[in-house]
């Protein structure tokens, strides 16, 4: 459903991604791992046109994402959860979720039910300001808001970054649960081993280039990858 073809991207004049190709098929969980500064987040942001694209194509459901507006991407079921600052702190949890999409009240209620079902701790916090929540709960709000539009492909930028250990496994479990409802997932993750273990396929980046690609298990069992990128 998503196919990135030789993409070059960066900020202004500085090129960070040097010709990476990548694919996500329907129903898959795909992880992008690699050391700090390898361009993982930049690659993810390039899909959503949040960085400057210098060359290459990004095809998603028969349209070139480099040529359509962010609004059109959202309409096509593409949803992005940023790594940091991913909630509106002075708005309540419910208002945060509402801003995920402009849909009818009835439809919104159905989405709320699904989101609260997935993240029960949000139910009692729904009238509380998102800025007062813990890191893990904020991440739940960010996920919830991305789910309001009924996405087909969810882009997650380091969903467990800065979370307490108890939340890391929980959030990754939720990623799997969301995937089981038919949503494809492309995530950048610093907990490389955990991410690859739950992924259908994975890509290892270093210095803005793709170094390895294989099934999640294949990458975990690859000794070279393990030694160089997964800490032995």
């Amino acid at each position: 459903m998503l196919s990135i073809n030789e993409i070059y991207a960066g900020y202004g004049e500085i090129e960070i991604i040097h010709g990476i190709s990548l694919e996500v098929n329907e129903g898959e969980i795909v992880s992008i791992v690699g050391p700090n500064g390898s361009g993982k987040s930049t690659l993810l942001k390039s899909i959503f046109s949040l960085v400057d694209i210098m060359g290459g194509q990004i095809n998603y459901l028969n349209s070139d994402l480099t040529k359509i507006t962010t609004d059109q991407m959202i309409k096509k079921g593409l949803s992005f959860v940023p790594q940091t600052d991913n909630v509106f702190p002075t708005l309540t949890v419910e208002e945060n979720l509402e801003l995920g999409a402009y849909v009818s009240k009835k439809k919104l209620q159905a989405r709320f039910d699904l989101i609260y079902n997935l993240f029960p701790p949000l139910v009692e916090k729904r009238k509380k300001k998102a800025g007062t929540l813990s890191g893990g709960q904020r991440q739940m709000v960010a996920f919830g808001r991305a789910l309001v539009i009924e996405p087909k492909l969810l882009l997650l930028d380091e969903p467990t970054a800065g979370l307490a250990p108890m939340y890391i496994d929980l959030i990754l479990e939720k990623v799997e649960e969301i995937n089981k409802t038919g949503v494809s997932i492309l995530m950048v993750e610093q907990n490389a081993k955990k991410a690859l273990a739950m992924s259908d396929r994975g890509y290892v980046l270093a210095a803005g280039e793709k170094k390895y690609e294989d099934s999640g298990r294949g990458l975990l069992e690859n000794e070279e990858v393990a030694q160089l990128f997964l800490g032995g």
Partner: protein
Amino acid sequence: MVAQLFLNGVILGSIIALGAIGLSLIYGILKFGHFAHGDLMTLGAYFAFLFKVQLALPFWLAFVLAAVFTAGTAVLLNFILYRHLRKRDSVIVMISSVGAALIIRNFVLLVWGPQNKFYEKAIQMPIIIGDGLLRIKQNQIIILILALSLVIAVHLFLSKTKLGKAMRAMADNIDLAYVHHPQLLYQVNWQ
């Protein structure tokens, strides 16, 4: 005496409160100090003078027309000035608003002159409360009620409507708002 001063302060404060809400909305969402805001308020008062006194329209019609024309001027300012500077440093936009303030101020002087103007010249008798303790005039009551209603209306707009919530979201985190509703941002920015 103290009670009367307090009442006068509340009335004057309620006029300033309306301006302050607009100013803080602009600063919160578009992140620049809008120096022409007070001048826009003045222009609104002169629009009211134009419709009420010079064109002799009924009070309520003049009130609505003055509001519409002032809002129109603000939109026009955005179209001819601020939107072109949207990607520049907020200090640049702020300085351009000082220029806009000077233009509006001198436009008022040019059209209506520097003398004081009056909506009504007749003497208005105050309502006396508590055996002469407090005196309040009819127009002061209208100012108080209108200011209070407008403050409540702005609060309801920001807390209950989708556009209002989106405006608060923009003030909170403009990059995140862009990820979710780029189109809405253009609406809020009148682009």
